[in-house]
């Protein structure tokens, strides 16, 4: 019992550390990728090719002056950034990064908690992250953050629904909510082949959930100055940032698990590379895609975003479910 | 009347008009170098060449008279080419000194080259390498830049009657400048500098100080003499740096005092804070304290039954006199005022001469009792012009005249003190009576007087009575004038004595300054207010002044510098110069002129009217609510429109003055006459020490040599000075210089300008 807890704790710590590492170097990746897309170099001086830049950024943000808006609602003001990072860490608990390993005679699955309602848990936990933005926008007691917070609330709720509906198809195919099961199902063939539409809808919805361009209205730098984090500075601002990248990492991880075959290697002759490495590579690929998307497309307008989700994506997701069900019945009579 | 067409405009002009004048009438501009409106046209520079239809060569517009039916083109291609080429030639050897040349900005060569020339020349030669000659502290002569327009030479010949300045050598080696002199300061050098179109003659006082376009110019009137030439004061950052005479009134020319005599305004020794005596020292105090102190002491004296007098320089403004007079009369209750601090007991009189044009047009002149070129230099130029160009006759009865004698038809050079006797003789001669006895001891022959009397009867003369004339002399001259049907023009000291008179700044009881000073000695007047004059320098009775000032209980001096008078004072109030105070002045023709302020008075300096207002306010009886000088001017104008009666005065030259070996005239050198010239550095360099001058033959007789150091002894006072020989001194007489504030020559005088002196060689 205690051993199980200790093992779980160690796994969690390792995963947490890796998450933080991904988050830190995710920022660097963002800047490097954006730089090269924009025909420039990105960070270059801090360490070789800018590899120590995250360290520098972290230190800088740590030492910055902490400005608190005087009219703000203090409790929520301090609470909002904390909420930003919590869902991502919570979600770590159910993401499998590899097959089980045998260590000291024990079979340890490379997942902190293999629960059978993992996906439900994930959805529940990730929908928590809207609070960060809404609280941030509201408590700052300023018009720009308010607009950002309001936009975010509406956007998040709409796309949460789509997110849930898109993974319905996967669940129907696999027949289980457990992520480990879903990954095992993709031993031979990735889910993306079975559920291409679901994958596309999931990616779009995930981008909207993450407040990434083209759906970054809550932040909307050129319109709302800073959106929900206008009034934040120093470490609290850093927390928002970290939360965003952590969410990105986790969402990419989920996408990998659900659609891209988890830790299984795509080509059989490369299966000697351990699962977690593959997982990491696929994760980085999805991450890169998210980054790439940001620097290529303009931003949606608020109402266009709503229209897009409710009038286009929702019907598509439903059609996907119907089609999946129909094909399953046709093919197997389940 | 010939009709001509200039650039398409038809005009009819009187015969004898030059093309240039005709074009000026029409408004067409023709560039000129050597032509100047106030000099006779010369046709030297060829800049004014114009094309006339039908005439093969281009004609110089400044000398060619128009003929009927001519068609004149001032801007055709030939003319433009001619101008371009001319400027190319002029520029061949011109040095590249624009960045350091003071003339830049008002240089006619620059303006013409920019307008009519090309940016590049085709002829190349080295610039001239003449040395820069500092011809004294007034002008700098740089022959490199000369364009040989000869304006300066023509001025020197036409207006000044010929000086050392001329054209020498030939061809490209031509030099325009003085032949012998190392220092060229001939009373009218300012005009030569103003005439020069390039930077060949520039002012040494203004040299390298600033650029002409950085100066703000204010219209004002010169404060040195009564002619009242209009000045443009060029001021920058509260410093008076240059003076121009652009508006040319009353005469296009101005003397050196007007043009260069302004350095005292920014002199470093000027004291601009009030001082109060404490024991042996004069301590700087605030204006408030000083005025309170003065008011307090004056009140004490007045309440104690003593009298207070006020003396002011005759060069202040009417507003000053009006308010000070009001203060003294209404507030202090004293009638002892006077402005005639240069001696004499005469009041300003009106004449039938209205302007310098009237002077120039006169057919004959009689000048008595003043070397016009020292005290009224521009008037002298006008008289000279009348003689030279108009051919008028000039009859001089002046001791030691230095300028007009060149033009004189008859020149009487009486011994010092003898002018009025000669005048008397002349009067008698006109009536045909016997006058020989009068001429004894004057050194003037009967023939001269006879010739003068005849000449005066031929043409109606303009009579000018100088500022040396005593009341007796004036009466004589008025009598003479009556006989000839002329009202003489009497000249006074200072630049606004007519204004002071009109404002009533004199004692209605008829007291002269001598009387007032005697009253100070006797103790009747215990308080004295002196403004803007050093009594020891200018009042011709140094001993009396000393006694008077020593006997006073309270002396307030309102002045700009620490003069001898200030050393006796109990309180010193800083005065504002003529550039810092506007106001109204009246010139010798009784014309009202306006001075304007160039910059605010320095530190605590105050003009006299402000002192009067301040004192009266602290006394408790305000003279009125005057915000600035413009508020006082209407009252001034009202007073000026009234015609006051001139009180009659008596007094003449007493023989007691002339007891001694040699009768001497005490006269200012040109560069020491005028206001505050002791503090004009350039003038101090030109007249550095006091001297005595003798006729060369007389000097030989006495056994002296030119340049000896002699002792002049008067009444036991011994003065050590240099001796010079000058031709204009009458034989048997001497001319001693005065007007050196650090040399107490006025001790030798007893109220008049004449004194008998004893000369002997100084032992080393």
């Amino acid at each position, binding site marked *: 019992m205690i051993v199980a807890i200790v093992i779980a704790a160690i796994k969690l710590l390792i995963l947490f550390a890796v998450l933080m590492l991904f988050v830190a170097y995710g920022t660097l990746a963002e800047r490097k990728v954006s730089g090269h897309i924009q025909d420039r170099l990105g960070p270059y001086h801090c360490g070789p090719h800018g590899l120590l830049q995250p360290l520098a950024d972290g230190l800088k943000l740590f030492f910055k002056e902490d400005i608190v808006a005087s009219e703000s609602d203090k409790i929520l003001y301090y609470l909002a950034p904390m909420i930003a990072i919590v869902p991502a860490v919570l979600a770590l608990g159910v993401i499998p990064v590899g097959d089980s390993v045998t260590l000291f005679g024990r079979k340890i699955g490379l997942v902190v908690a293999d629960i059978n309602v993992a996906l439900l848990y994930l959805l529940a936990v990730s929908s928590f992250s809207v609070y960060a933005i809404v609280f941030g926008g509201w408590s700052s007691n300023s018009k720009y953050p308010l607009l950002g917070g309001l936009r975010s609330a509406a956007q998040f709720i709409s796309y949460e629904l789509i997110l849930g509906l898109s993974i319905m198809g996967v669940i129907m195919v696999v027949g289980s909510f457990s992520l480990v099961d879903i990954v095992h199902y993709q031993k031979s063939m990735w889910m993306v082949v079975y559920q291409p539409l679901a994958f596309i809808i999931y990616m779009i919805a995930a981008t909207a959930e993450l407040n990434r361009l083209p759906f970054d209205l809550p932040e909307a730098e050129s319109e709302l100055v800073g959106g929900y984090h206008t009034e934040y500075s120093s470490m609290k601002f850093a927390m928002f940032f970290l939360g965003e990248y952590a969410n990105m990492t986790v969402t990419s991880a989920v996408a990998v698990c659900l659609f891209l075959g988890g830790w299984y290697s795509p080509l059989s002759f490369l299966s000697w590379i351990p699962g977690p490495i593959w997982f990491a590579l696929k994760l980085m690929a999805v991450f890169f895609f998210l980054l790439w998307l940001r620097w290529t497309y303009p931003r949606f307008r608020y109402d266009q975003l709503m229209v897009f989700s409710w009038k286009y994506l929702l019907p598509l997701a439903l059609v996907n479910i119907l089609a999946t069900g129909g094909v399953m019945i046709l093919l197997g009579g389940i | 009347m010939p009709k001509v067409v200039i650039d398409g405009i038809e005009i009819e002009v009187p015969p004898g008009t030059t093309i240039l004048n005709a074009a000026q009438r029409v408004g067409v501009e023709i560039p000129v170098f050597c032509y100047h409106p106030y000099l006779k046209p010369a046709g030297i520079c060829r800049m004014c060449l114009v094309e006339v239809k039908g005439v093969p060569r281009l004609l110089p517009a400044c000398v060619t008279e128009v003929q009927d039916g001519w068609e004149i083109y001032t801007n055709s291609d030939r003319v433009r080419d001619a101008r371009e080429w001319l400027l190319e030639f002029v520029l061949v050897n011109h040095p590249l000194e624009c960045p350091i040349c003071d003339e830049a900005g008002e240089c006619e060569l620059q303006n013409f080259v920019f307008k009519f020339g090309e*940016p590049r020349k085709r002829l190349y030669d080295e610039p001239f390498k003449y040395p820069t000659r500092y011809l004294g502290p007034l002008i700098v002569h740089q022959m490199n830049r000369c364009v040989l327009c000869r304006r300066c030479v023509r001025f020197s010949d036409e207006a000044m009657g010929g000086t050392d300045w001329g054209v020498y050598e030939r061809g490209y080696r031509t030099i325009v400048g003085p032949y012998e002199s190392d220092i060229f300061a001939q009373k009218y050098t300012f005009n030569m500098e103003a005439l020069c179109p390039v930077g060949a003659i520039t002012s040494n006082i203004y040299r390298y100080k600033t650029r002409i376009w950085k100066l703000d110019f204010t219209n004002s009137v010169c404060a040195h003499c009564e002619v009242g030439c209009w000045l443009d004061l060029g001021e920058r950052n509260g410093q008076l740096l240059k003076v121009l005479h652009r508006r040319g009134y009353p005469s296009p020319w101005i003397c050196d005092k007007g043009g260069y005599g302004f350095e005292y305004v920014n002199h470093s020794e000027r004291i601009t804070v009030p001082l109060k005596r404490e024991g042996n020292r004069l301590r700087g105090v605030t204006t408030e304290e000083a005025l309170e102190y003065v008011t307090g002491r004056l009140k004490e004296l007045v309440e104690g039954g003593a009298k207070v007098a006020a003396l002011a320089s005759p060069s202040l403004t009417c507003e000053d006199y009006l308010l000070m007079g009001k203060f003294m009369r209404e507030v202090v209750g004293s009638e002892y005022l006077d402005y005639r601090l240069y001696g004499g007991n005469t009041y300003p009189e009106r004449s039938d001469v209205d302007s310098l044009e009237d002077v120039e047009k006169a057919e004959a002149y009689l000048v008595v009792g003043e070397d016009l070129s020292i005290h009224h230099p521009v008037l002298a130029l006008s008289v000279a012009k009348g003689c030279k160009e108009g051919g008028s006759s000039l009859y001089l009865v002046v001791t030691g005249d230095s300028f007009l004698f060149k033009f004189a038809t008859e020149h009487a050079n009486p011994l010092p003190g003898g002018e009025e006797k000669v005048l008397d003789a002349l009067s008698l001669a006109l009536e045909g009576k016997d006058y020989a006895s009068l001429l004894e001891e004057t050194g003037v022959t009967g023939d001269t007087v006879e010739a003068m009397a005849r000449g005066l009867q031929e043409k109606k003369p303009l009579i000018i009575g100088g500022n040396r004339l005593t009341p007796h002399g004036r009466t004589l001259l008025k009598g003479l004038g009556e006989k000839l049907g002329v009202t003489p023009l009497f000249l006074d000291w200072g630049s606004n004595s007519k204004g002071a008179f009109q404002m009533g700044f004199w004692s209605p009881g008829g007291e002269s300054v001598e009387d007032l000073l005697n009253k100070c000695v006797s103790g009747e007047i215990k308080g004295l207010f002196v403004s803007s004059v050093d009594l020891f320098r200018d009042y011709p009775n140094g001993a009396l002044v000393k006694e008077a000032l020593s006997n006073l209980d309270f002396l307030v001096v309102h002045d700009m510098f620490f003069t001898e008078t200030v050393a006796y004072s109990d309180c010193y109030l800083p005065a504002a110069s003529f550039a810092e105070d506007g106001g109204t002045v009246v010139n010798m023709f009784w014309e009202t002129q306006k001075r304007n302020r160039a910059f605010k008075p320095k530190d605590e300096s105050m003009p006299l009217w402000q002192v009067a207002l301040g004192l009266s306010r602290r006394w408790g009886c305000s003279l009125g609510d005057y915000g600035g000088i413009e508020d006082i001017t209407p009252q001034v104008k009202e007073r000026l429109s009234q015609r006051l009666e001139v009180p009659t005065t008596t007094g003449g030259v007493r023989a007691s003055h002339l007891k001694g070996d040699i009768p001497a005239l005490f006269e200012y050198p040109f560069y020491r006459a005028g206001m505050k010239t002791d503090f004009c550095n350039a003038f101090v360099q030109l007249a550095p020490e006091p001297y005595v001058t003798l006729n060369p033959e007389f000097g030989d007789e006495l056994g002296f040599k030119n340049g000896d150091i002699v002792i002049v002894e008067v009444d036991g006072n011994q003065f050590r000075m240099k001796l010079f020989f000058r031709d204009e001194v009458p034989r048997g007489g001497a001319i001693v210089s005065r007007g050196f504030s650090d040399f107490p020559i006025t001790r030798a005088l007893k109220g008049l300008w004449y004194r008998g002196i004893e000369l002997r060689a100084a032992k080393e």
Partner: protein
Amino acid sequence: MKTVAEHTERRTYTLNMGPQHPSTHGVLRVILELEGETIVDAKPVVGYLHRGTEKLAESKTYQQVSPLIDRLDYLACPAYNFAYCLAVEKLLGIEVPPRAKYIRVILAELARIASHLIWLGSHAMDIGAVTVFLYTFREREVTYELLEMAAGVRMHQSYFVVGGVRWDLPEGFIPRLREFLDILPSRIQEYENLLTKNKIWKLRTEGLGVLSKEDAIALGATGPMLRGSGVEWDIRKVYPYSGYDEFDFDIPTGKNGDVYDRYLVRMEEMRQSRRIILQALEKLPEGPIHAMEGKLYFPDPDWVRGEHKDIAALIHQFKLVVEGFHPPKGEVYQSIEAPKGELGFYIVSDGSPKPYRLRIRLPSLMNLQTLPLLSRGHKVADLVAIIGTLDIVLGDVDK
């Protein structure tokens, strides 16, 4: 008792899009009356960059005014200098030599390309496509390089002087310019690939900020604002100046007058500018580059203080610096097609070396008048797109 309707009356709130804002293109302040996210009214407040150009010009000689004019639209300096110099030359009644004319056209069109590039970059960045900004600046860097070659300075060149251009084009200029023009079409195509057919871009810009023909003319909008609404009006064609009538080029116009149309108009204008430059390069003759050297602009420094020192040149230099040239009395108005619209200079001269009155008709200021009309009824997010399409530069709005 309040009725339900009264309780629930919708009220507007005021949002200040202040002078400090990432997307107001300078220090423009817009006071928005918002109902939720819908704009009820947008009031631009200008004057935060006012430097008193017109008043300053009254105390400077005609040549000294040029640097002031540079700083009006600091993103397209040659064009503004161009207009000013043309105005003064009209006042003087002189013609510049042909080489100077063509050099001016080349640089003015280069400035147009540069201005449109930065317009595109900032417009796209405001709407969210940040990468385009960096790409356009890559091209703009080349224009800076070219301008530095010609004038010695990247911005605020004052390269055009009254009577011609300051000095001749250096040797490497034309090859580099040709290089630039060679790659320009592919680069413009790159931007088009990213934006023109992009669904999101079209969603954000089509149907937005529609300015009808009548409104455009009534409000005095000029330049692409006017042409985007379908009015074929380009000063280069209607009142040709400096040899534009010798060139062959088209005037792109839009149909609907919305943001998308104006975007297309400006993209096409860049291509047409390139066309003009190529034609000008063909026609570029040899010859003097200044009409009256020494009389209007400083003579060659070599003649003033170099080896071939000349007193006449020194005098001209002196007089020009200290006094300046004297144009005849009169008044003149000269306008050109600046990248942002019609730029006009009205100069009143009283014969002295300093202008008596200099009045500048600024395109951005006039175009800014349309902002309230264009933005009513749209969302806050659209406001940035509309400000972007107006293509304003605050130096050009505030003088």
